């Protein structure tokens, strides 16, 4: 693969690790990157008791959906800094010009993004579910579905960000492109949580979410990589 033996190569894996570490490091340095998705999630969720109704019965009925929608929005919005900074300071060009397979580099970035913005949301969700009077037997389902679902959101979102990273006009276009793509996850996830109280079996839901995760893990980074190449052009 490399007919230039003189050049000391680095293994793709160590490059992967380095990229992962770098992104996590940046997030740690901007502490609020860690905090904000959480806060946003919390705030948006608490908008509904204020805006819709604070009646427990009412809330119980809608809580599953609201938590899921909020999680969806939170991970959408946290996406914005996924490639932006790298694009603006030129690190993205360096990444594209590195001799490493882009798939893994993008994957590393997506994973770190999920660890930063997705995972905390998942962990916080039971608390919010409680605040919205979600029946307690649905907590675990909520956590599990989010655990399967949020990575898919990050991976899909990554494609959108990659496509729009070059644009001066940022912000909403990302959501407009990505949100429709993420609807299936939302539907299945919310439905799973709702179905708990109906006592239906959830195997189907988990299977579907798992399938989506597998699919997006294998394909989405490729799409993102292609999109990035297009955007820096």
């Amino acid at each position: 693969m490399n007919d230039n033996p003189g050049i000391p190569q680095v293994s793709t894996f160590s490059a992967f690790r380095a990229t992962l570490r770098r992104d996590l490091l940046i997030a740690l340095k901007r502490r609020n990157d860690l905090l904000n998705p959480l806060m946003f999630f919390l705030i948006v969720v608490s908008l509904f008791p204020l805006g819709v109704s604070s009646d427990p019965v009412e809330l119980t009925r809608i809580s599953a959906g609201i938590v899921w929608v909020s999680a969806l929005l939170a991970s959408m919005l946290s996406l914005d800094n996924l490639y932006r900074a790298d694009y603006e300071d030129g690190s993205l060009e360096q990444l594209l010009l590195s001799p490493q397979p882009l798939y893994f580099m993008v994957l590393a970035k997506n994973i770190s993004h999920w660890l930063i913005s997705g995972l905390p949301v998942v962990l916080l969700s039971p608390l919010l579910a409680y605040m919205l009077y979600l029946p307690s037997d649905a907590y675990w389902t909520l956590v599990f579905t989010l655990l399967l679902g949020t990575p898919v959101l990050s991976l899909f979102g990554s494609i959108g960000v990659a496509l729009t990273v070059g644009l001066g006009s940022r912000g909403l276009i990302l959501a407009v492109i990505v949100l429709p793509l993420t609807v299936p996850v939302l539907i299945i996830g919310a439905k799973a949580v709702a179905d708990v109280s109906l006592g239906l079996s959830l195997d189907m839901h988990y299977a579907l979410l798992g399938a989506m995760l597998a699919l997006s893990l294998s394909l989405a980074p490729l799409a993102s990589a292609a999109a990035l190449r297009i955007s820096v052009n």
Partner: protein
Amino acid sequence: MWLWFSKLGSPKWFYELSSKWLPWLVVAMTVLLTVGIVWALLFVPEDYQQGFTNRIFYVHVPVASISLAVFPLMAVAGIITLVWKMKLADMVAKCAAPIGAWFTAFALISGAVWGQPTWGTWWVWDARLTSMLLQFFLLIGVIALRSAIESTDSAAKACALLSIVGAINVPIIKYSVEWWNTLHQPASDLTLNESGANGPEIWVPLLIMMGAVYCFFVVSLVLATRNEILQRERRSQWVVDLIAKARV
């Protein structure tokens, strides 16, 4: 194969070919349209339950079914753009997006107009309607991306990619929406089989209208594409000559 492909890829070739058979298409369209409309409006027996309104059926169904074909079309064009870097494919894709959006919108609207008398409401969150709405959003997304990117070249590739991703998603969305819909039945839902049950005096005019609307779609797509071709190739010799001829 490859030769044919690259030939087809040339906008000039397409432009000249289309100028040849475009007239025929238009004729076919007008004939079918007139026949279909007259038949549908005047000779189809009143529907026992819906009365006159079910005539909308004859535009709604064809339009809706075309809307479903738009994303696959764009995806195919996208693949051709990315793999064979064929400009023509991108021009088609670019024109297909807004036209498809209009058709989708019209499916939604005609459906809504139909829904008003049928279900007493313009809109229900029925599976088919919802997935149609989502597909509309996806199309808008592609259009927005196209208009957001400056350079034609990047825009072409970016939209191609997005169309492909979207096309992969459309069936997933459709499936999940239908699946979701099984939980809480909406106020009413559309049943295809009914129309199937009805006799030929219903579906023959439907077929005609189908043909007419399909022709209409193709014609508008071709016209738009031809514009796009002239737009992009305006500095190539053959377009210059063409314009010169048009002047005199």
